[in-house]
């Protein structure tokens, strides 16, 4: 495989006017769907499949892929400016991003999100290019028992993400776990906790829950507080752009985010979301001043934003090398390819090399385009938040309403949005953090299903379950994290008793 030759060929083809235009269109649509709450890349890709019919296979893959990774750029915009996540993967960016905006550093936050996304996306593409087949084989080593131990580790590590009372965070997480059990049970086919709603038979949709819990609750928070809108500091337009020395501390976070996002992307499930949570936790752990997280720390934006781009790109590896989709948007990419008679899999790179290399080349270009698109607009976006809330809040509310409706073209999801909006508002007023609930909701399904699936596969033989090498390592890690948490809790109690 003559690497450079193939890559150069790819670039040559990617630079064609048609392919460049398609790349731009795809990434633009992706960014827009990322910004818009509710509708996500999956829906946009599905809607554009008919359009991709008429395009040659390479172009259609460039288009669809552009939407996919482009969405990871847009989601952070509303997170930072309004504390309302545009995508599930941008929830964590709200935590510190919004605080930065309140301090007048919206431009810096947006810039670091764009740059981090570019760096991570580009690095991840290099990973895909060089290591797709062996990484795919590594991904296959993970079976149900391994997924279970990762989910367990995730629940333990992410349980106390943004601080606050430990008991309340745990309760929120347990509520999330309960929500995750709603629907048709995978192993038995029984419907659980659907309260008679056929709309719940596949479980509760994540997007309206997230929009409600983080977005609508924030709207409610804003309208009920009687603060003057001039709280948003009067910042000059030029000053909205970041200075280099402000961005420097974020570089480490970007690297760490990229590194942690990449392997998470190789696993099935909502890897973009999970990687952003993991990266946030990682930054908090590595930081010299962890207590500052939540007040507007730039690493809290850079890490997660890099991670979700890295994970999204990495999730293309199982698709290209094995022909197996690990997440819904990737499944759409797969069908987009299949419709053109191209089957990804072990022979993909061999038989359709020029498709593969052209797409890889266009992904470099796409990431670059997105950064060039987003950076100059940073100042424009940052000044948008100066719009008075009396105008902005109604518009955002209507946007979320339609966004929630548009997921499945039904009102049920809007009802979910409203319910969780109110619930999230009350949660925050009573000292609960909403993030653990989301973690419970997302990880709960993976946790329970892989536990029972895993036990099914080993026929209840617990030893067989836990003696698998990867599972064993992860379980030991989980145990270590658990004991460490216990130790800290015990030490904390001792300290408060002595003082």
């Amino acid at each position, binding site marked *: 495989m003559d690497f450079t030759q193939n890559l150069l060929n790819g670039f040559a083809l990617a630079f064609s006017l048609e392919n460049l235009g398609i790349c731009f269109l795809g990434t633009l649509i992706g960014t827009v769907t990322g910004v818009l709450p509710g509708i996500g890349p999956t829906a946009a890709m599905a809607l554009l499949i008919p359009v991709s*019919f008429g395009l040659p296979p390479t172009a259609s893959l460039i288009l669809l892929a552009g939407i996919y990774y482009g969405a990871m750029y847009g989601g952070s915009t509303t997170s930072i400016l309004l504390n309302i996540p545009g995508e599930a993967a941008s929830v964590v960016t709200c935590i510190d991003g919004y605080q930065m905006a309140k301090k007048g550093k919206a431009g810096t936050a947006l810039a670091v999100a764009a740059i981090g996304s570019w760096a991570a996306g580009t690095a991840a593409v290099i990973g895909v290019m060089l290591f797709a087949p062996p990484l795919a084989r590594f991904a296959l080593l993970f079976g149900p028992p391994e997924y279970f131990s990762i989910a367990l580790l995730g629940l333990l590590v992410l349980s106390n993400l943004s601080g606050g009372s430990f008991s309340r965070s745990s309760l929120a997480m347990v509520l999330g776990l309960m929500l995750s059990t709603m629907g048709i049970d995978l192993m038995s086919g029984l419907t659980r906790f659907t309260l008679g709603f056929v709309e719940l038979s596949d479980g509760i949709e994540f997007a309206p829950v997230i929009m409600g819990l983080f977005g609508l609750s924030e709207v409610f928070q804003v309208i009920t507080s009687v603060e003057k809108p001039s709280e948003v500091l009067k910042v000059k337009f030029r000053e909205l752009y970041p200075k280099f020395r402000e961005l420097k501390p974020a570089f480490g976070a970007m690297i760490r985010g990229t590194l942690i996002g990449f392997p998470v992307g190789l696993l099935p499930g909502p890897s973009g979301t999970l990687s952003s949570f993991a990266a946030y936790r990682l930054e908090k752990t590595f930081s010299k001043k962890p207590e500052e997280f939540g007040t507007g720390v730039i690493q809290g934006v850079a890490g997660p934003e890099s991670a979700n781009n890295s994970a999204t790109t990495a999730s293309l590896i199982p698709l290209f090398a094995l022909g197996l989709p690990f997440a819904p948007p990737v499944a759409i990419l797969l069908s987009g390819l299949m419709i053109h008679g191209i*089957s990804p899999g072990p022979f993909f790179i061999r038989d359709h090399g020029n498709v593969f290399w052209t797409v890889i080349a266009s992904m470099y270009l796409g990431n670059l385009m997105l950064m060039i698109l987003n950076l100059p607009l940073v100042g424009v976006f940052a000044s948008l938040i100066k719009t008075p809330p009396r105008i902005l809040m109604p518009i955002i509310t209507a946007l979320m309403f339609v966004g929630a409706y548009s997921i499945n073209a039904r009102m049920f999801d809007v009802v979910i949005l409203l319910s969780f909006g109110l619930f999230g508002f009350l949660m925050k007023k009573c000292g609960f953090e909403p993030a653990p609930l989301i973690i419970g909701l997302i990880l709960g399904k993976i946790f329970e299903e892989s536990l029972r699936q895993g036990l099914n596969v080993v026929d209840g033989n617990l030893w067989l379950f836990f003696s698998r090498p990867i599972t064993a390592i992860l379980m030991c890690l989980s145990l270590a994290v658990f004991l460490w948490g216990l130790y800290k809790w015990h030490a904390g109690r001792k300290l408060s008793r002595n003082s």
Partner: protein
Amino acid sequence: MKRKMTAGFVILLALTALVFGEAFVWAQQTVKYPTKAVEILVGYGAGGASDITARILAPHLEKILGQPVVVVNKPGGGGEIAYTMLAKANPDGYTLGLINSPATISIPLSRKVSYTMNDFAYIGNVIYHENLIVVKPDSKIKTFEDFIAEAKAKAGKLNVGNSGPYADDHLASLALQHAAGIKVKDTPFQGTAPSLVSLLGGHIDAVVCNVADIVEKVKQEQVRVVFTMGEKRNELFPNAPTMKEKGMNVVMGNYTTLGAPAKTPPEILNKLIEAMKQAMSSPEFIKKSGDAKLPVKYFSAEEIAKIYKQDTTALENLWKTLNLPTQK
């Protein structure tokens, strides 16, 4: 204050007039079909086999009917949401949907639903493919007899992945076990793709699925077909025998049919039947569906109605014989 009230009242009056006016105009329309867009409800997510089928068929129907034909995904409950919506839709020919056997038939057998098979009228069948068993290429199971032997040797611990509880492939596995007198461990996954991931990772021993799920994977030497449950051997897998050849009358497969609500007027239904016949015999459709490796197989409305009736009886028997659960 008074002015505001009058203004409000006038607006209310105007809106009322608008609503009633619209209703009047609508009632005056004579039955000409189609005069606006036609929807095809698909009970599975975008990107799946049903979805691709609908999306490849739709443009050809559109050309013949002269109105936009739009695919609408309504996933949920293994297709239940879409089937329910189709059953309850206005029988005016503007809402169609994809119905499947055995899925549409088996769901009411396994739990309480709001539709019955009598709520549908059939237009024509698009897809048929049989269920089959695949293993990894390096698996020691090479023949049908190997499979039976392994199942017996592992005494109920041979892991066979499927795409969900009481999905078509799970039912195929149950029928297979019953006929061959063996017991395997059915491991459900959220769809066929995750089951194949587990198979390739060596975590499970075999997967039961459909032709379309693995035809490309066989070509790329990722899996091997051990045997199929079709009427006769599939030319794509010439070395895989059918269960019928081995003396067991197990024929299990998946039909995807275009249907409409039962009370759709016959003139409209006939128009749709004609349109579908034309669409499926057009060379572009044949080419596009061939490119996408869809196992296209046309059956007329009467033929498929008969097949569904037979399948219903067969599935009801299966439920009784195997004592499968019903959550009512």
